[in-house]
């Protein structure tokens, strides 16, 4: 089956749905968009209607109802499903179901075994260690025994002392937990047992599993990512450089991403930044080769102030910030790289068509996530009606939004309030920062909520953080 006989069902909403539609159009593919009652006025629905007509739209009950999504796919004759990010993107059961049902389809993402193996953080950590990839010091399996837990904690304190860490600290977390639940830190060995027991009991109660993980707590680290792209079969994974995602909200939500991860050309670091970036790329590729990674994915790393990189986890999906890596990448010297397009192409089983040697990098990219939130008040989300959204088009700017520009738009409360993504490119860091500031100055976002309170956005926060970007 040639490529243009395929039809992609986009099982997502908002900005990523818009970008997948555009990528499909670029590749000459038919697509089907799904939407729910709440999203009927969203930009992705309007765009789908514009590009594909009413036939390209199916209303479903719930983005997370697999049966609903698949019956929409069957009804429209879709041959592939793109999960976007969130929702089904890292759900290996869904991926398996798409691939193994009686009318199988392409799942545009890694094969389900890969998603399953890398979706488990503990499993990823063990895999990494078996390949000699550095991970955060601590246990790489759930600990069930109090004596063992204490000895690991003691070793961690000793280790940090030897390393000269000023405030040694150990994290105790429920192995079955996640999302910040069942996690606590210990400053002092004397307090360890108390904390351990509390977390263990919490975990037993909440998750019916008393296992805990014990790790070193690392402060002031930089959050780096490696973008990996690989074709089905996973023989020759290619990386698209590193990204730095250290500017985050207090809830660890990313706000600004830059590529590359460090900028040794213009900034000075207390460690060999080039070597660190090379190392994490090398390590990431070794894991990708080992597990035969076969689509687009991101390896998340943390780098300590002393320049030690540790692998955190692997995101087996396209990420929000894929555009910023694409902005600085060139394939065979050509710009206009689109990772979503690559993802769809490879997901449908096509071969890479280029190798690592064909990929080169130029300049600096910055991505802003423009979100309606009150940065003064613990980044509380703001919901209301957007009256106006406007910006000046530039050839160094790519802006993705699902907010319609020609009419007011009510932010749905059901989903996250990410409004727009702006990707700025400059030939060096100075230029990128200047362009970024200029963009933020020009950007207009106005609205009002039900109480008559004016829209609050994070633009000022982004402008503030742009000043010392990539410094460490």
């Amino acid at each position, binding site marked *: 089956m040639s490529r243009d006989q395929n039809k992609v069902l986009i099982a997502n909403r908002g900005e990523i749905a818009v970008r997948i539609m555009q990528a499909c159009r670029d590749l000459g593919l038919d697509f089907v968009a799904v939407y729910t009652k709440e999203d009927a006025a969203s930009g992705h629905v309007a765009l789908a209607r514009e590009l594909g007509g009413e036939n390209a739209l199916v209303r479903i009950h719930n983005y997370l109802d697999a049966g609903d999504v698949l019956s929409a796919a069957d009804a429209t004759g879709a041959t592939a499903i793109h999960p976007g990010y969130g929702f089904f993107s890292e759900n290996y059961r869904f991926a398996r179901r798409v691939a193994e049902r009686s009318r199988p389809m392409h799942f545009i993402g890694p094969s389900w075994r890969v998603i399953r193996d890398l979706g488990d953080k503990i499993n990823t950590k063990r895999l990494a260690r078996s390949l000699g990839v550095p991970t955060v*010091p601590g246990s790489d399996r759930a600990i069930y025994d109090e004596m063992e837990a204490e000895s690991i904690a003691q070793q*961690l304190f000793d*280790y940090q002392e030897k390393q000269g860490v000023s405030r040694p600290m150990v994290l105790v977390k429920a192995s079955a937990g996640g999302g910040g639940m069942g996690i606590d830190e210990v400053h002092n060995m004397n307090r360890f047992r108390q904390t351990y027991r509390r977390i263990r009991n919490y975990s037993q109660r909440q998750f019916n599993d008393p296992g805990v993980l014990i790790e070193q707590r690392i402060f002031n680290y930089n959050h780096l990512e490696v973008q990996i792209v690989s074709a089905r079969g996973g023989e020759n994974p290619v990386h698209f450089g590193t990204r730095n995602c250290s500017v985050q909200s207090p809830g660890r939500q990313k706000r600004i991403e830059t590529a590359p991860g460090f900028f040794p050309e213009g900034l000075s670091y207390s460690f060999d930044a080039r070597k660190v970036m090379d190392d994490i790329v090398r390590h990431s590729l070794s894991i990708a080769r080992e597990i035969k990674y076969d689509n687009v994915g991101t390896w998340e790393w943390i780098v300590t102030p002393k320049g030690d990189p540790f692998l955190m986890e692997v995101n087996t999906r396209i990420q929000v910030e894929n555009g910023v890596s694409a902005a600085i990448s060139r394939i065979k010297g050509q710009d206009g790289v689109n990772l979503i397009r690559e993802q769809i192409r490879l997901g449908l089983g096509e071969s890479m068509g280029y190798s690592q040697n064909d990929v080169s990098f130029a300049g600096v990219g910055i991505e802003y996530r423009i979100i309606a939130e009150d940065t003064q008040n613990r980044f509380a989300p703001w919901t209301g009606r957007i009256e106006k959204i406007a910006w000046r088009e530039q050839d160094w700017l790519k802006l993705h939004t699902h907010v319609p520009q020609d009419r007011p738009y009510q932010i749905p409360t059901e989903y996250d309030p990410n409004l727009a993504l702006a990707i700025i490119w400059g030939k060096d860091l100075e230029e990128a920062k200047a362009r970024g500031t200029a963009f933020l100055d020009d950007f207009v976002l106005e609205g009002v909520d039900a109480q008559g309170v004016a829209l609050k956005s994070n633009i000022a926060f982004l402008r503030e953080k742009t000043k010392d970007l990539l410094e460490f």
Partner: protein
Amino acid sequence: MDIEKSLEALSQRVAYARDIMGTRVSDRLEAVSHDIVALGQKADSLSMEEALDKTGELSRRLTTLEDDLDQFLTPMDKVRVVRHPQRVCLKDILENVYDNYTEIGGRDEVSIDPGMLIARAYITRRVGKRVIHHPVMVVGQEKGHGQEFRNGGSIKPWGNAKALKYMKVAAQENIPIHAYVSTPGAYPVEDYPGAAQQIAENIYEMAGLDVPIVAIFSEGGSGGAEAIALADKRLMFSHGYYSVISPEGAAAIECKFHGLTRATPELIEQCAKHQQITAQDNLRNGYIDGILQEPPLGARNEHFDFFKQLRASVIRATDEVVVNVQSVSLLRRLAMRGSKRRQVGENVIVRWELAPDDRELLVWRRYQKYRKMSRQAYIDKRGIFERLAAKHMEFLFSIYSTVRYEILKHYQKKIARMATDVTDEIHVVTSKMDRLTCQAMEALGIPQWGGGSDESALTCLSEPRRDQGNSGGPAYVSPKALDDREVSCPHAATRGCLDIWARDLFGEFAGVCPNCGYHFPMEYQWYMANVFDRGSVREFNQSLAAGNPTGFPKFDERIQKAKETTHLQSSCVTFNASIRGIRLTCGMLVANFRGGTVGSAEGEKLIRALDLARKRHQPFLAYVHGTAGIRIQEGVNGLIQMPRVTLAVRRYIEEGGLYIVLYDTNSYAGPVASFLGCSPYQYAVRSSRIGFAGPGVIRETTGMDIPPDYHSAYKALSRGHIQDIWDRKDVRANMHQAFLTMGGRNLYYR
């Protein structure tokens, strides 16, 4: 006047005979009836003597007719006999058989359960010049000639609890128990306690009551009968029936198979015949020890000869039980044997109090009595050599078991303690040596191994957690997990569960809804593969096969079909296995094989497994994948498994075994009301249902519509039937924990 009275009496006898005949019409009976009416009309015109002559003749005719009719009573007629309001009831028996009695535990309406009558009674006996008073405890169901409040002898759980209480009192006072069974079945109510729960307790406790128990069956209906009928001597009225389920109930179940919506009278008749419910059938099958011949068409209040005979029989039965276990009784035994045909106990003095040693022997005899029952009812497919070899092995194994666990036990502990003491002593020396070597190496500047390992331990691959015996991919894939379809959770409407893909649900989720935790039924193989250690399952006694001992029509094909579809020989699978290294014996009731019903083969397999566990000193797990009750087509052959297996369970527990029961799906009726329900440790998997009678049967028998959660595991938990509810995925871990905490160090406590 006398004429009228005797005519009235005659027409009543005719009416009674008509009742018994049911729908059939006897010409001779109608003729007699006609003559009675005719005589009544012209009675005035006759002289007294003529009239008396005529009535006397009619009476003789009627008696002959009754005799003739009695020859051809069908099983269903006998069911009508025992249910007739004129049937002798327990009060009549107390009045006429015993010399004096006091009702205890409530009287008539003023009782916790008026259907259960308990009385302390006296039998006074003259032997030669001596007068002996025998106190006895009489328990039994009372129908009370149709008194409404007696509930037809259908006993609620608290009635059975009352009976048990006073049976224990009898054991305390060392007096025999006479149990008169006259119940259509227990009342299926799940209150505190539940019907099954209480019957199980009754059977279990009766298995250990160390006083003579004599049971006399008039109407023995299923679990209600078993609740007081576990006896050393079981007698039966010749017109009584003793059955696993009433013929109507059996027909209601069978009618589905015959494609009928309602049971027809013919089908009921057929079921009654093939279940072998009559006294004669039961005597032939060995489930009762003797028959009390009733007058034609059944005993009624006016049959004083019958009461005399009954009195003699119960005295003789009790005497026999007592004499057989008394240590100094040789002459009396011989005397009684000689006097079998003559009037009972003329020269024999038997006192019904037992010495402590005799009481132990009595319980042991009772165990053996039941152990020998129903041997003819299952199919043993082993060849003669296999059987001999098994016998041999069994004998050798019991010797080994005795030596290993009884004789060597004490020395074993001593040796183990000695060994630990010695190693602790040696440790003093070795630790000193270690310290010295360390110091020496430090002084010489030799780097010590183990030093500096801290850092690498924290950042390198650690040892994987030691295998718990069951890691690796799934060992068993459910056939339901192969088709591509969506399954709706029954809680979808209330809890908002999304439909689940069958392959996820029956594969990875092990049949548990990820949203609400509803447990879909899984195959028993899932448990075999996931609860026990890989490759540790060793099945035994596969060659015992379920058969069709009653010759139930068309049942051979059905049981053959079950064998073919499940590849099992009976609904019970017994095997040795281990959970995290703890060896155990398991008996599994498989729902796929005829609903997990228990017949004689299943009972025998469970008893053999219990014996094996006892000899091997292993804990026993009764895993109930699902059971619908006793296999009704086997009749009493199935019903008798309730006391049989319970006795084996009692023996196992008393010798120190740990008996754990786990219910998985729907578990109802007989097994739950006996050998399963009597376990002190019972657990249920979430979403299972546990009860005495299913919703349909309850509606039929009581007319009540029960709420949907009536039998849910939570209800069973709240009324104390089960100890806890487990999630399917935790069964292995919880089972291990249970064995550790309940079994003690050697897993065979005490």
